[in-house]
């Protein structure tokens, strides 16, 4: 009989297996997210395709913000820009916290690795998901080498040190955010050195020291992420006196806007408030009413696509209950109709800031046509999404 002792498996192999687990879970979750936002993704790809710009110019443009960090003479600008990049990195990982967690199974796993190794595992996972964020850093390095050759080696090292800080800051934000202070102080010192024209090696050294200090003092591995539940308003409590559609609508609204979902709707919040912000920004410029109406109305498209994407959330909510609902006579098509009605109502609420901007502040009365058009677009997108859901179920 062959007995495999725990010691027979190397630490590196366990590390590899656990890393593979986390990446598979992340890929599955992200794919689900992409499926939910497929309409938005296609729209953005069509709008933002830089087919007309040469690749080198694209890379230069992409790396520009990172390169400006190392330029002398603009300490405030570079410090502000760096803080913005760190905030984006934090937001990026916070938005994907569920996918990064490794799932329910990860919590119950008694990990056969020391906390230090787990920290490296988390850093590895974060580095992989940060690849889109690291693109500007890669582009900056390419630009430096393309323009100055090996003379730019110290700057290349400094850019690499800055890039390495993104996953470190994300990890500290998840596990022990006060340790971020070490990184920030070191960054400020490094950027100040760059701004005053001192050796670029100092920037790299300061950032690396900050990273090391932050990681060394973040000894705690995990932080409890329990969210206090907020009691829903009485109109959203289920009641025997209400009809079935109203109770299902209340369930939908509580799920969509429950306290545990807040982090997922930052994008939606952005699109809801964008027309108001745009109006404030553009009204000082000399823009004609027709152009203004067109610009503000364009904000409707991402709002429609985001709202239609909520179909996938609702489908996920009701899927486990479908057999029981069927016995209660609440069929799938009936649920689809109630869900669609809820999403149309939610869409109307989402449109309020845009409509109030267009009608009350801008006095663009033609904007009254925007709402029915938006609702028709939404109905079509919801129908398309349900078609995808039904096809997935049948498969």
């Amino acid at each position, binding site marked *: 009989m062959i007995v495999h002792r725990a010691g027979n498996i190397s630490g590196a192999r366990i590390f590899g297996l656990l890393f593979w687990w986390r990446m598979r879970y992340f890929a599955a979750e992200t794919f689900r997210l992409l499926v939910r936002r497929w309409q938005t993704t296609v729209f953005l790809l069509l709008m933002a395709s830089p087919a007309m710009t040469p690749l080198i110019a694209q890379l230069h443009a992409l790396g520009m913000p990172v390169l400006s960090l190392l330029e002398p003479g603009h300490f405030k600008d570079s410090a502000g820009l760096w803080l913005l990049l760190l905030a984006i990195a934090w937001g990026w990982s916070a938005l994907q916290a569920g996918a990064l967690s490794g799932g329910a199974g990860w919590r119950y796993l008694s990990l056969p690795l020391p906390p230090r190794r787990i920290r490296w595992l988390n850093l590895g996972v974060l580095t992989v998901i940060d690849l889109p964020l690291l693109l500007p850093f890669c582009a900056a390095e390419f630009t430096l080498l393309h323009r100055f050759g090996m003379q730019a080696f110290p700057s290349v090292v400094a850019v690499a040190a800055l890039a390495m800080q993104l996953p470190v800051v994300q990890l500290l934000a998840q596990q022990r955010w006060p340790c971020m202070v070490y990184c920030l102080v070191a960054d400020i010192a490094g950027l100040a050195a760059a701004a005053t024209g001192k050796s670029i090696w100092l920037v790299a050294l300061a950032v690396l020291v900050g990273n090391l200090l932050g990681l060394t003092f973040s000894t705690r591995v995990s932080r409890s992420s329990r969210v206090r*539940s907020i009691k829903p308003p009485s109109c959203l*409590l*289920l*009641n*025997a*006196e*209400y*009809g*079935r559609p109203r*109770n299902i609508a209340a*369930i939908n609204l*509580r*799920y969509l806007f*429950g306290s545990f979902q807040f982090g997922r709707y930052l994008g939606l919040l952005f699109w809801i408030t964008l027309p108001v912000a745009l109006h404030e920004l553009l009204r000082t410029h000399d823009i004609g009413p027709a152009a203004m109406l067109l610009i503000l109305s364009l904000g409707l498209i991402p709002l429609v696509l985001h709202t239609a994407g909520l179909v996938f959330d609702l489908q996920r*909510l009701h899927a*486990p*209950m479908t*057999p*029981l609902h*069927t*016995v*209660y*006579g*609440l*069929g799938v098509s009936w649920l689809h109709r109630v869900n669609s009605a809820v999403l149309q109502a939610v869409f109307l609420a989402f449109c309020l800031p845009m409509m109030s901007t267009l009608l009350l502040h801008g006095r663009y009365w033609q904007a009254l046509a925007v709402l029915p058009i938006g609702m028709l677009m939404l109905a079509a997108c919801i129908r398309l999404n349900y078609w995808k859901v039904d096809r997935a179920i049948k498969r």
Partner: protein
Amino acid sequence: MIKVQRLGKQRGQQTVFRQLDFAWDTPDIICITGANGAGKTTLLSMLAGAMSPDVGDVLIQGRSLVDQHHSAVQLISYVPDDCPIYPFITGREWLAFTKPIRAFDANVEQALLSGFGLEPHLDCRFGTMSLGTAKKFLLTSALMCRAPILILDEPTNGLDKRSFEVLCQHLEQRKTEDLIVLSCLDQAQQNQLGARPVELSSLERL
């Protein structure tokens, strides 16, 4: 009460049933028995109308679950083997949700709530309940309905001794009027429930 005609179900490449053919005409407590994976849960969910068969039909007091689904399911109360209830709603809300769907007996509801010891848990959310407590809420919502056919999939899972006795008493009272079809792996519990065991494979038409 229940008549099953040439019922067949395929799960992927695997045939769960080829042709089930049977009828249960009188009130009774029937316990479907069989090995793990034999298809007990699949059969019960098809009898309840929660899953549609690939071929064949189930008649509930003469109403077809395939052609007259809406009117046929009015005669059924069903408790699934797991607890799929929305995790953010409370026990009280779940009972409130089911009440407008089926006619229910308020006295039975009250008796079951106190018998199962559910009153302190009425305002707990399903996400925070133990399996046993959640199961008791599901049982209460199903048993308080005035349906002549009860389909209970593993109803004793997670129940404590006192709650199991309450369930036995309730089924004992109903077995003279209603048809109760359940699954339960524990033979001692089957006996205590007074259930007549029926081997799943014996229902297959040869």
